[in-house]
């Protein structure tokens, strides 16, 4: 049996809705995938894109951002601001060659323990399907002159194949 890939995921939750949803999932003893490690913030609006970049560059395979439903933010409308940032960040990540599915925005109210559990498990499966991110890991492989030459030639081959 081949060992299946267990992704590491960082999850950001807001204090009022999604963290409480996680609490509720716990209180209700709902089982979900153990791959997500949560960080509590006061609001999804606190999400600095730096955090996501730090997590992805630091070994996480995916990042889940959760907050109150639109219109239900405990700080009135800050989750909309999180949404705007998230959408722009996602575009930048795509530009960096990262699949947009590696970051996910989930709205979960304090009553939605089941949704939190289900979304978490679903996200883990999505990331599992994408495989490890291993950001910058290949860089540790020492390079030889032959590698570079091969890369140059490979680049040439690819272009020729296209044209």
């Amino acid at each position, binding site marked *: 049996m081949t060992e299946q890939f267990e992704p590491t995921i960082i999850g950001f939750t807001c204090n009022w809705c999604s963290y409480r949803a996680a609490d509720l999932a716990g209180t209700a003893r709902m089982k979900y995938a153990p791959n997500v490690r949560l960080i509590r913030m006061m609001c999804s609006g606190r999400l600095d894109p730096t955090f996501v970049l730090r997590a992805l560059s630091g070994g996480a395979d995916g990042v889940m951002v959760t907050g109150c439903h639109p219109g239900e933010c405990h700080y009135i409308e800050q989750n909309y601001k999180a949404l705007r940032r998230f959408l722009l960040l996602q*575009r930048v990540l795509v530009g960096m060659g*990262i699949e947009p599915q590696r970051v996910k925005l989930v709205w979960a109210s304090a009553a939605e323990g089941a949704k939190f559990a289900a979304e978490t498990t679903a996200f883990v499966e999505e990331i599992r399907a994408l495989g490890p991110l291993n950001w*910058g890991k290949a*860089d540790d*492989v020492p390079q030889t002159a032959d590698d570079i030459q091969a890369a140059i*030639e490979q680049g040439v081959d690819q272009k020729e194949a296209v044209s």
Partner: protein
Amino acid sequence: MTTPKPKFAMYWAASCGGCEIAVLNTHEKILDVDANFDVVFWPVAMDAKYKDVEAMEDGSILLTLFNGGIRNDENEHIAKLLRRKSQIMVAFGSCACEGCIPGLANLSPVGDIVHTAFNTLTTDNPHEIYPRTSYDVPEGELHIPKLAKILRPLDDMVDVDYYMPGCPPESHQIAAVIDLVIKVVKGEAELPPKGSVIGVGDSTVCEECPRTRNVKTIKYFKRIQDVAPVDPDLCLLEQGIPCNGPATRSGCNARCPSAGAQCIGCYGPAEGVIDYGARLITAFASVIDAQEPEEIERILDGIPDPAGQMYRFNLAGSLLKANREAWKAK
């Protein structure tokens, strides 16, 4: 008898050379450099051999201004060499600090870069000749420097004492730094703490920008050439023009916005900021006046190259450093 003058070096790694020009743009101040320093190594200005530097005693150079990123093994070798020989190593200019435009090549795998350089419509290369890292000639085996997978800023490779950003650093800032170092040499001033960013302001470009600023809400992003007419007195971002000023270190006197162009971010992030692009993402996202995902996406469509916009000067110095394809290249 006079004490020997302290030694000065300057080097040009992966960069365009604009930084060297900026040094010359200090005009007569350059004479002060000559008067106060013994220039021992400055390939663009004088003849010198690597082996001469290698022969120097470690720590014998007082000040090295190192410009350019590290893109090949020659850059790497000289960076390490100069580090060993120098007391003060300054990452001079945006390339050395954070990769700058050469760092944008980190969006592509190295093979693609070479291919682009040697075989595009604008390159006349009928025989498909590509560089080889080693080549046998009758006189023996020739080597050209080996390209690294990605470009790295100087401090990814060696310990850096000071950072002086800008593409290039503003000449008045260079002059001020030269003055400071001369004063330090004369014992009239003290060096700033190690790791400081020098020749810059305290805040970001907006602080120096003369344009009027209001509470910002925008419904679209547009390229500056598509905005007609551009209000000469109003904050460019408020006019929907993606101006990097809010996230970019001050010190240039808001040169671009004052002249009617948007800031493109060459002075890098503000003090303490870990990732420049993240700050710009959040700045732009914060001013979008929309709540529905569809409308937000429509507005964001006005930024056609998000990665390039956010990291024009900073990619190699960012948390992610490079596109995934570039990392994956063998």
